[in-house]
């Protein structure tokens, strides 16, 4: 028994050697599994992963999941320590929850060790700190930064003799002037659907007007006068300038409305821009402009950023951690970001990519990305452990205001009272 086991070991070692020799791999042969959000980057990453395996011997299976599925599966895996996933994409707003539960390993020591290799200085500070850093602990590595920008119809603005909006007041004026309901053209659109869609969109606009979900003490300040005023403006915009169905829009429906040509302007994450130029699904090819998201007059520059980090499961052993870190370094490198751009997918964390003159010529909106990331605000959605509940409270409150079953101040007072109980 003893001998035969030894024999088997020797055989497997030999075959491993043979395999290593044949493909000239430098690292240990290993297969990692990654839980990946079903965003445009996912399929590209799955396509590129084999080239990483060829070079290093580390195969990475990219398991592409929808948002709720990703969150529930990863959480169940990490909490149960079942080690199904070695690494995962982590939404910027999960940082608080993940940090509190200790789901992923602290990356700072690895980042310090390999600082030169990963070119930390090349990464925008807002992405580095915003995506995956929670109160000084780096629990995920910035992989894809999304920038909140304003997409507008150049043709409609030109025809009306309007300049693209610089301030929120401009945006409101343009929204009203461009609305032509009988011809099914509306000046503006945002998500109105109950839950995450309406909560996230309102938080974006609210921050641009100077509102904030948390007070300076880090506790909820949902019913502040500024927030109530901004919600009133938001509701009035829905009534006066948004398509009638916008109260049930989520991201997909809003983009569809814009691509169908019935919306003059809306704020979007940069990741969606390429779909407007795809003639198979878009009626507005070549008619879109991308500019900085407007803010209230006199407010300091502040642009919403979101996106995904890559985290390593805290339950896996040292060897797999090291392999996963190797993959992260590769996946978040400038070289791979350029390959993403070849597939028309922009995951912007690196200055060298965004400021590359050749790429700037191909993607004129990169100047907007650069300016936004340089003044990025990753906290307009509070990245705290209580975020899911706060988002849900706002998701119901704001939707109720939009459909007219609650008044702004009362709805926010109610949400504030409930949010306060979470702290």
């Amino acid at each position: 028994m003893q001998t035969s086991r030894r024999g088997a070991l020797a055989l497997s070692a030999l075959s491993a050697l043979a395999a290593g020799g044949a493909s000239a791999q430098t690292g240990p042969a290993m297969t990692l599994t990654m839980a990946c959000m079903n965003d445009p980057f996912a399929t590209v990453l799955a396509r590129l992963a084999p080239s990483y395996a060829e070079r290093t011997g580390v195969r990475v299976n990219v398991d592409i999941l929808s948002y709720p599925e990703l969150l529930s599966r990863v959480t169940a895996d990490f909490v149960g320590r079942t080690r199904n996933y070695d690494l995962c994409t982590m939404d910027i707003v999960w940082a608080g929850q993940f940090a509190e539960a200790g789901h992923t390993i602290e990356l700072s020591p690895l980042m310090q060790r390999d600082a030169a290799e990963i070119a930390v200085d090349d990464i925008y500070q807002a992405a580095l700190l915003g995506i995956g850093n929670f109160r000084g602990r780096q629990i995920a590595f910035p992989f894809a930064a999304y920038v909140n920008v304003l997409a507008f119809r150049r043709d409609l603005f030109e025809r009306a003799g309007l300049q693209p909006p610089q301030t929120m007041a401009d945006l409101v004026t343009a929204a009203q002037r461009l609305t032509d309901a009988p011809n099914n053209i509306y000046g503006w659109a945002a998500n109105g659907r109950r839950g995450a869609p309406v909560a996230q969109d309102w938080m974006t606009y609210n921050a641009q007007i100077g509102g904030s979900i948390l007070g300076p003490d880090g506790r909820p300040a949902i019913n502040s006068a500024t927030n109530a005023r901004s919600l009133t403006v938001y509701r009035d915009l829905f009534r006066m300038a948004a398509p009638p169905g916008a109260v049930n829009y989520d991201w997909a429906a809003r983009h569809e409305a814009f691509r169908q040509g019935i919306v003059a302007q809306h704020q979007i994450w940069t990741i969606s821009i390429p779909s407007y130029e795809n003639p198979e699904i878009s009626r507005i090819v070549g008619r879109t402009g991308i500019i900085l998201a407007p803010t209230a007059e006199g407010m300091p520059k502040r642009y919403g950023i979101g996106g995904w980090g890559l985290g390593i499961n805290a339950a896996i052993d040292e060897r797999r951690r090291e392999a996963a870190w190797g993959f992260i370094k590769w996946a978040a490198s400038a070289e791979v970001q350029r390959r993403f751009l070849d597939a028309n997918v922009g995951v912007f964390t690196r200055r060298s990519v965004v400021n590359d003159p050749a790429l700037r010529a191909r993607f004129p909106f990169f100047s907007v990305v650069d300016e936004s990331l340089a003044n990025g605000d990753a906290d307009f959605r509070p990245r705290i452990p209580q975020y899911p509940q706060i988002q849900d409270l706002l998701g119901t409150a704001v939707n109720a205001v939009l459909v007219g079953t609650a008044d702004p101040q009362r709805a926010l007072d109610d949400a504030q009272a409930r949010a306060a109980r979470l702290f």
Partner: protein
Amino acid sequence: MPGIRLGFTARRRLFLVMIGLPAVLYMVLVAFWPLSQGLAYSFTDYTLTRPGPVNWVGLENYADMFADPAAQRAIVNTFVFTLAAVGLQLLAGLGLALLLWPDSRFNRICLALMLIPITVTPLAVGLIFRAMLEPDFGILGYWARVWGLSPARGYLADENLALATLIVIDVWEWTPLVALILLAGLKSLPTDVLEAAEVDGASRFQRFHRIILPMLLPAIFLALVMRSMDAFKIYDSVFVTTGGGPDNATNVLMFHAAKIGLEFFQIGAASAISTFMLACVGLLSVSFVLMIRHAERRLGSR
């Protein structure tokens, strides 16, 4: 076992116990164990994302659920949805089954076509209806709005019509299944009884009311229980069409529980809702049993 001698009866009893044991073990492992776990969790503050001890909180999760306006609305909505959707499916399904009863090529083709909705996953059904009913660019929703047939915001974003729209979608998808079950029931009815009634001069209505309906009751019961258990757990179509909105107009128990369990990871609170749902489904099933028994007695005694 040496030293112990068993008589015939005892051996037979042991044999029967051994035969039944795997099934009992299976039920304990697959059904009772998770259920009791869920029930036990519902009395705790177990939260997946919060490390630390799990505390016993008694009935607090249940009290919170009944005090939360969103949950209250979810309870009402779930019952309204289940009773309305299953009731309509039963009526329409019975009508369809009666129409398809005579065996003809046309009916067989109709039956095959009718089964298509059942084969589509509810998530896809929700997405298709949402796309069609979209009031700004949906193929039905746009014209319904322009011609004044729908509210300005569309059916799914109107507080008064959103739940009704979801009921219609469910009826569209599941009526064929109910019709299929009832058709199977109709086809298995003894023809001699029906022919005898016809020869005796019973009218169509009399035959339906006195003969067919009482004999069809077991099939009706099956359809009722199956569909109401399923309808009570509605989730997919709410998730993709309305997200529980507008306001709380289409918030249902399963959607509410999934949010608390899988978004907030509050397993204790989510287990309380699930346990409550289980009790409701049990109660519904028992009331159907009683209803059918009552109907059998009433119809059979005439």
